[in-house]
Structures are given as C-alpha cells and as structure tokens.
C-alpha cells in the first residue's frame, strides 16, 4: 500500500504539501522501489540507513569513576535502582561470580556498551549485524529478520533491529539503485534501532548494580562526524521493573579506528575497586 501511494503522488505531480504528507510513506519504498520492476525484498544491508561497520574505540568521557575503574560495592550513583536493586547491589561479590562462572555479568548487553572496550561491527549475513567486543570477547547479533528469540537466555539476549529514518524523512538512496551507504558517503541519513530481550541477569555497572532477566534494552545507534573524526553514538534505555524505579537512560560514544591494530581481546574480568580512604 505504501508503495502504491508514493508512486501515485509522483506520477500525478501533486502538490508539494501532499508530498510532505506522504513523506513517511515515501521513506519506506516497497520491494520494487519507486516505479521500478518488482524486485526481491531488499536485505537489511542493502537498505542500510547508516554504515556502522568498522572498528570503534570507546571514549570514556562520562561516568569515568564508574566505568573506567570499579566503584565500591553499593555505589549506585546516578542509577535509579529500586530497593530490591539496592539490596542486590549491596550483596555484590565478584569472587562468587568468578567461582560460579559468571564473570561476564558486567559484559551483558545492558551494561556492555558502557565498558571501556573496542567494538568490531560487521555483517554476519545480509540481515544480521554483528557487534564484537575485545574486552569480554562478547558477540551481539542484531537481527533484522529472524525467527525470534531462542528459549535459552544469554548475556547478549536476542536483539531485533530496524533502520530508522528521519521523521517525515526521505531516503534518496532508494531512488538510485539501492546501494547501501558506505564509509565516505558523507553524512549519515538515519540510524538503527535495536531492542534486546531474553537477557540473562547481569550488571549495569562493574560493581554489581543488577538488571534482571526481565530487562528490556532499547538502543539507537547513529554516526556523527566532527573535526576530522568519525564517531558512533549509542543511546541506551534499560527497562527493568524488577530492579529499577524507572528507565535507565545513558548514551555512549565511540571513535572510529582505522584498523584492528589496537584490537586486544581479553576474557571477562572485573578489576577490584580502587582502595579508598579508610579502607
């Protein structure tokens, strides 16, 4: 239906106001594009609104005292933990985690992007974007199409993804053959929305601030460029009625690296908190 309305608008040369009204429809061409012959449905890679692939390094310019180093047990500064969350945070025991094979709790999806680490983003297949980390050696799969989550919960859960376009936006690329954007294409035109569920309980921060298996993570990935650098930004919203009073909203940023020369895989591990005065 969307394809039909956009084609009709173009053919009739209707008023620009009408074009604006139908812009959201225009922004989402159907399988055949605009007026072209019927084609197979575009893959996620082909219809990409922004190129996220490459190596990225986290720049920890915010929350340094809670991200770069491990804060003391119970320090939940800025995080809207509810009483149950605070109780669990107060019981954090990294040695117990290690003994039970749960060292990767801070590297679960809801906390992963806040860790000091590097990302490698690539296409696993044309409808699955893969995010790997060096620290923690985690792999997230962002599914643009799929069969839904498996029965078993995991650190990275199950992520569904979709491209988002400007409100009232228009994807001109769809008019010119549908080539996916690539580095060097100029400004990004859209972003990626990802929703992750099916999570194994993990930590929002290294010091054991918990999220539960009921948590749902919503993320928006986008790219910006300034002063000769290329950045990836990730807005994250953690919804977890078990341990949070309200949604936990953070954003993280990464700088593009030219290659994998700084890629330094290391297993999940949590450094002990820095000794503070009186300890």
């Amino acid at each position, binding site marked *: 239906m969307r394809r039909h309305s956009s084609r009709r608008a173009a053919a009739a040369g209707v008023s620009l106001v009408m074009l*604006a009204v139908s812009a959201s429809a225009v922004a989402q061409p159907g399988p055949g594009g*605009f007026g072209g012959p019927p084609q197979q449905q575009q893959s996620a890679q082909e219809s990409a609104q922004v190129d996220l692939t490459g190596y990225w390094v986290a*720049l920890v310019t915010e929350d340094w005292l809670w991200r770069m180093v491990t804060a003391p047990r119970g320090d939940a500064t800025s995080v809207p933990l509810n009483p149950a969350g605070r109780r669990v945070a107060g019981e954090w025991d990294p040695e117990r985690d290690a003994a039970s094979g749960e060292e990767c709790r801070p590297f679960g999806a809801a906390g992963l992007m806040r860790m000091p680490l590097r990302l490698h983003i690539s296409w696993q297949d044309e409808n699955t974007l893969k995010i790997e980390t060096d620290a923690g050696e985690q792999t997230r799969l962002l599914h643009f199409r799929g069969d839904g989550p498996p029965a078993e919960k995991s650190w990275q859960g199950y992520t569904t993804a979709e491209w988002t376009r400007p409100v009232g936006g228009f994807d001109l690329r769809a008019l010119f053959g549908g080539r996916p954007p690539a580095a060097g294409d100029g400004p990004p035109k859209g972003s990626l929305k990802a929703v992750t569920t099916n999570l194994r309980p993990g930590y929002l921060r290294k010091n054991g601030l918990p999220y539960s298996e009921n948590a749902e993570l919503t993320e928006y990935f986008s790219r910006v460029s300034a002063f000769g650098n290329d950045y990836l930004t990730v*807005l994250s919203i953690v919804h977890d009625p078990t341990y949070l009073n309200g949604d*936990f909203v953070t954003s993280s940023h990464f700088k593009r690296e030219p290659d994998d020369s700084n890629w330094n895989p290391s297993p999940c591990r949590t450094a002990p908190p820095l000794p503070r005065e009186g300890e």
Partner: protein
Amino acid sequence: MKRLDLVCALALSPLSLAFAQVDFTGAWDHPGLFGHEDFNDRGAGPEIGDYMGLPLNEAGIRKAESYSGSWLSVPEHQCTPHPAAYQLWGPNTLIVNTEYDRVSRVAKAIRLDGTFGIDRIVWLDGRPHPPPEALYTFEGFSTGRWEGDSLVVETTHMKPGWLRRNGTPTSERAKMIEYFTRFDDYLLVTTIVDDPVYFAEPFIRTTEYQLTPRPAPVLGDPFTRNDGPIFYKCFPAEETTADKYHVPHYLPGENTLLDEFSQEYGVPRWAMSAGATTMYPEFAARIETGQSRGVQAPPAVVPPPEPIPEGIRSMHVKGKVWAIFGAGGNVTVQIGDEGVLVVDTGSSELAPGVRDEIRKLAGDRPIRYVINTHFHADHTGGNVSLATEPLQQAAVIAHENVGLRLVETGADASNLIMDTFYGESKTIYFNGEAIEVIHVPAAHTDGDSLVFFRGSDVVSAGGVISTRSFPSFAADQGGSVNGLIAALNRILDITVAETRAQGGTIVVPGHGRLYDETDVAEYRDMLTIIRDRIQHAIDNGDSLADVRRSRPALDYAGVFGAGDGPWTTDAFIEAVYRNLAGDR
C-alpha cells in the same frame, strides 16, 4: 519515469529541505532530572581533581589544577552562566522553539532556552559567523544545518568556559559541533568540542533528554512553568571581605584538594593529571596495575593565530562608537552632530585607509579631536594625517608623558600641538556625551590613558589590553606589570555587565577583538596569576632560568603566547621577572 518525476518535484521544491527536518520543539528534561550519568558533576558539582576522561593536554591540566572554587566569588564572575560547551550537560530543562520568517515561513532559527543561565539561538538562515573581532559570549554564535535526521550546530565565538564545574577549561579558541538527533521521544545531543589550547584531541559528550509534556502556559504568570522565557537578572554581591581585586587561584604544587580527591576516590595522582590518555580503554589496565611510566598529559602547543581579514575594516561597537581594525593599533571613533572624535590613529602608512574608513562612517563630518592612549607609533602614527583638517586642525589630547615620549623619539606626531594633561583625568563633552580620559600610571608605558565614553558605554583601552598577546609593558618607558594590573582593575571599576556577566560596557582594546567586562576580568586574572607565580618563585630565590623552566605562563600561552616576533612568551616572562625582581 515516475521515479524521475518525484526526484524533480523534490529537488525543485523549497519545501524539500523540510523533509529532512525533525521537530525538536517542546520541553525536554534529563532522565531522572539530573540524567543517569555523572550525577556528581551535574548535581552538587564535581570534585576538584576529577580531571579523568577529558582530553586535556598539560596546559589544560595546569589550568585546572590552579583553579580555586573561590573564583566564583570574584565580582565579575559571580553571575557567569553555564558556557555553551557545558550548559546542556548540566542540570537543566531545555525548551526548544522554532522561529519562522514572517513572510517565507521558513524556519529562521531555533531557540534553546533553558535553566542553564543564558539562552542560545541557532541560526538556520545561512548567515555567516561574525568576524574575529566581534564580541564573544558564553553561549557563542551558532548556526545550524540539517544532515539526515540530525540538526548539526556549529558554534564559535565562545568565551573561556569549562567542561566540568571544577575548572577543567575551554579556551576562547574552542569551536563546537553538536548533533541534535531525535529518537522517538528522546533527544540525544552529541557535543564535540575542539580546543587547540587545552585539548590534545576533540572532546565528545552525549547528553540525553526526554520529551516532557508541559501544561499550557499561563500568559503573564511568571511563576508558571511554561514555555516562555524566564526573566532572571543577576548582579554581583559582596560575598567576601576579600579585596575586590583579589584573584583566587592555587600556585603550582599548592592545591591540597588534589591529594584529598586522590585519597577519597583511590585514584592515583599521576592518573589525575594524565589527560587525554585516561579516555581510552587501555587506561583501565594501567590504573589497576599502577603502570604510571610514560603516562602524562600530552604537551601543550601554541596554535597558529586565528586568521584575521586583511585590510582596514570597521565595526559598530555601541552607541556612537565604532572601532576600526587593521590599522596597526585599533582605532576608536565616536561620531555625532558635532563631528568626529578619534582615539588613536594607527600606523602612519595606514592613515589614508583609516581616513577613508572614517569618511565611510561619518561622511564629511570633520575630525575635531584626536586622543592618544599612549605614544607608540602604531597608535600615534596617523596623528598628522588625521588631525590636519582643511579648515581646522583637530585638538590632540594625551597625557603629558605621551608628548614627552614623542619628542624623545622624534616622531612626526611630536610636531603637532598637543593638549596634554598631567592629572588623573581630563573630561570633555562632545557629541552629546561625557568623555573621560583617565590616566593609568606605569602600565603599558608611563603615559597610558583609558577613554571612557559615558553615554555610549564604551571604553577604549589602548595599550593596556592586547587580546592577541600577553600584556606588554616596557620598563624603560615607565611601564610595569603591577601598573598594568592596576589599569585593568581600573577598567573593571568602570565596566558593568548587562546580564549574566556579559555585554554591557564594551571595551575596545589596543589590539585584537572587542572585550566586555568578563573578558577584561579574565585578562586581569591571567596577568595576576602569572605575576603571582613569578613573584612566588622570586620569593623562593629562583633564578630567571628556574622560572623559565617552571613555565609560569604554560596555561595561557596557547591564547596569548608567541614563539617569535617582538613580544614572545619568553620575553614576557623575562620582563615580568625583571620588573618584579627590581631589575628594571
């Protein structure tokens, strides 16, 4: 064919840009009011010493470590709003409005009002950024353009500010690019600041907002939390019994708060001053294992000076006063029905161009008065040309030491009859306003004057201020560092900020861009702090070589320093040292 039709329709449409625009209007709050990151930074305020995660170089670290929280008790700084590079990160409600051209109905500007102290306007109408001599503000000058679903805002002309409320600095050389991107009912603002003076690389920060429905505004009710602007004036108060000219700061190595922070949070001192390296993941291992070797803030650099337009050009300052740039020293011009008054005349070879520029501004009105702020040739060289009118020579007013120095140097200007004065000041009334010529002794030279246009609310500062170099003085011409500081304080006695520590009285310096009260205070602070550091070293018996090694101007050299030319950073340090040590 249909595809082509649509492309053409969009390309030809003035509304096509609108397709790319996202609606940001409305009221936005940080999640949880203060946001879910860095509560300490955004709430009560960060600790002195929390400099990690910032791309500071050694100049930035030095500036931060010398910062004292008492800086905010200085009268000129009390009303300082959050600067542009910090304001959205800080605690605030952001209210976004769009202003439309009344005829074309095209969005002309986006207004960012907030509880951060000063509103911002992002111009969308393609206007250029102001020339380099224009006044700087805390919010800077912003222009916007659309890139896909983001509004990209570029900001220049920002006064010195901070990244955190603990003295981590940004300089007036900083430039900022922001991306405003809306994701459903969230607004993400990505702020990237590049500051060649204090940063080793650009700084990036991402700030989240949530759309917050507001009740309909109640017109005329200033207490309703609505979408209207908030009326708020701030005036300095006598907060302490300290000398009003006191500049609080810590001398190098004397900031005990740094050790306190280190002990309280367990962060080693070497990590606190490591600057840009602390942003990267590798630092986690270093700090855990205590690998401090080779970890230090990147070296400071003195960036090349900001390019300035060539040729003689003018700018309206305020009231009846204009400034002419590019003439050697700056020329200040007051224009009215009675004629023209000129403060300083630039270099002799550029005088014809200055005369032409004055004619452009004043037409055939004659130059009635020339006032010289001091005797240097780049300020008096045009005297003969400008003061010699066909029908009547302009009166040349200056402190008597200017006349004496001109004769001493055999300058052409010494051939003019001068109306000199030897007291504290001379007053005249011209073009409907009182004008005070105020002598400031032993400053840049022994004959300096400030010229205060009372009605226009403008001060011409002459040699006392050069915004492109360290303050200069010649001891053999009667100048001194303490006299310069006293002269700057004298200017601050005159100036009054309009609101939030900016605007109000405007100061035309002898060289460089326009200043307001806060700029003069920053300049005074800089000179006082460097003076204090060198005096402290002298008191400790340090030699000039010792002082040079300690680099007492390190944190200001990126703005005011020079490696070559007539007034290098080294020459400045030596002059201050010798002046304070009594060695001329």
